[in-house]
């Protein structure tokens, strides 16, 4: 099957899955508690509750409410965010960008360290270094992220106070023009070195903490695929030809080993997006994490729906891209099974 056909098929499937996801969450948010719970105060009488329900159209049957919501989304109206006391569409972009910037830097570290570590271990199969790396990567996958984040916070905030909290330093941040919302990128576009450094200062610790789990997953995959590659025939013949181990790895094995690793790299973005929820809470990063958990706990349906929608879209698109890239790289794979 052509790659193009595959992409088209996947793209067509995407809205369907998205639809199902939104229906699922929409239904869930109605299951327990009132969808207008965010607006309720302690001492409401029954009549007051009913008046509110009428105002917000909760009386309508569920499908009608869903269609109304969907229509709004397509128009760009995501409803009113009770936790933020503002339209969702006003608050969402800044939050989204903050999370994406954190996640992308986390990805950068996860990939860098993961690939290096994986190659390192894979080349030393079953030796001590390999085992030690395995312990490290398994630890990374087992470590409760919230716990790790808390420990790092104590270490670099209390014990050795070098880490700043939050996303930026107000004075520096206000100096630049925000083209994209990505602080580090905007700093570059503004040719402002101080801002760039400021963005990095604040990103450093949360991104590294976030990367830990992703790094473990990537390292593991890289290691096993490198081991597999090194077992292939062409490696033997390359060695026989007289190439050094280093050259063998660098020129051939590693590149091929990267192929299956790509899928994991894509998946790890998903892991990172989830992990960011916890990391943001601990490091007070103004992204989707705190916002969404607040909304979930306080019954702010509009915010929760928007959050789930946005995150799902990112997930699905990333996975699609990963599958396409993988398919492109390795045409031996049977597409669409």
């Amino acid at each position, binding site marked *: 099957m052509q790659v193009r056909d595959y992409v088209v098929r996947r793209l067509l499937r995407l809205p369907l899955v998205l639809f199902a996801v939104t229906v699922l969450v929409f239904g*869930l948010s109605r299951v327990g508690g009132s969808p207008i719970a965010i607006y309720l105060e302690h001492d409401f009488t029954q009549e007051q509750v009913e008046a509110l329900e009428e105002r917000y159209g909760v009386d309508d049957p569920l499908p009608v409410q869903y269609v109304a919501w969907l229509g709004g989304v397509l128009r760009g109206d995501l409803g009113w965010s009770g936790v933020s006391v503002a339209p969702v569409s006003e608050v969402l972009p800044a939050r989204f960008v903050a999370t994406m910037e954190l996640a992308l830097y986390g990805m950068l570290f996860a990939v860098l360290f993961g690939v290096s570590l994986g190659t390192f271990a894979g080349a030393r199969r079953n030796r001590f270094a390999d085992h030690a790396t395995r312990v490290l990567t*398994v630890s990374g996958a087992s470590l409760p992220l919230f716990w790790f984040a808390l420990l790092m916070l104590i270490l670099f905030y209390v014990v050795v106070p070098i880490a700043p909290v939050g996303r930026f330093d107000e004075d520096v941040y206000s100096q630049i023009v925000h083209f994209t919302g990505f602080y580090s990128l905007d700093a570059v576009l503004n040719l402002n070195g101080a801002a760039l450094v400021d963005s990095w200062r604040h990103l450093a610790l949360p991104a590294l903490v976030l990367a830990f789990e992703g790094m473990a997953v990537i390292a593991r995959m890289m290691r096993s695929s490198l081991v*597999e590659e090194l077992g292939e025939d062409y490696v033997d013949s390359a060695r026989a030809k007289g190439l050094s181990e280093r050259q063998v790895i660098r020129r051939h094995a590693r590149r091929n080993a990267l192929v299956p690793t790509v899928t994991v790299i894509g998946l790890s973005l998903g892991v990172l997006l989830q992990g960011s929820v*916890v990391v943001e809470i601990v490091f007070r990063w103004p992204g989707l994490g705190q916002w969404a958990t607040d909304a979930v*706990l306080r019954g702010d349906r509009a915010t929760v729906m928007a*959050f789930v929608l946005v995150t*799902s879209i990112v997930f699905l698109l990333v996975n699609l891209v990963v599958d396409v890239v993988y398919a492109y790289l390795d045409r031996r794979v049977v597409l669409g*099974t």
Partner: protein
Amino acid sequence: MTDIAHGGVRAPAPEGRWEAARTRGRRLRDLALQVAKSPSALVGSIVIVLLVGMAVFAPLLVEPNSPDPYQMPRDWSNVNAPPGTPGHPLGTTPDGGDVLYGIVWGARTSLRLAFIVVSITMVVGIAIGSLAGFLGGRWDDILMRVVDVFLAVPELILALAIAAVLGPSFRNIIIAITILGWPKYARIIRGQILHIRENEYVDAAKVIGDSRWRIYRKDILPNAMTPVVVQGTLEAGHVVLFAATLSFIGLAEAGLAEWGNLVSEGREGIIAGRWWVAVFGGLMVFLWSLSFNLVGDGLRDVLDPRTEGR
């Protein structure tokens, strides 16, 4: 989720049915031996035994609280006591809950959680995945699309939404995780089934005239199980970690003897210097998760032919 990454593991097909059984028994023994060879898996197994032991023997190790043993006993005159306080070797929580009690009985809570969730999700996942793999065609499509939906949403977010609408309680956390856990198994077993179906001995069985159910039970299922077992082991570790994360975020039950709840209760105090509640709680989650991951890894190495003979 990507198609590729969930392709599943292939198992070599034995020749005949009788051979399959004998081989299977032998394989189990070999399996255990091979797993034990890996030092990390061995360490993991030992830790699991210790943790499970602590869970099972909890009433003997620490006197059960009454009336509800899963509630930490509270000492209101000794809140936020540091480790070493008389009567509270590991300190107390902001509510005066005894941390040692929370650790020991928390193991029991985790065992219950892992057992319930893994068994239910496995059974449901295998059932649905088998249906999809066996029936094929339209049913396969529909069921797999449902699986897709569950895997499309970040599990943490969905779990939050479910548990939040149901209310903060441990029971609801279990429900939430269970609802989200079965798709992984479904996918695995379906992939396995599709592959195995194509093997000759299954066709041979069809020729002989065996019913589909017998083929399924005797030939397909046992051989498709290996990756499921690996996944189950890993999940036993993962669900406890996941539940702890949900507790941390704010869905914990007041006073429950559960590790994640300990971290939640101790979180704010950390920066105030009251490290013991969250650190001990988190440490236990880490140990549990780590040990199951190590053993699961060990199992996977042994069972995965791509890396066989390493």
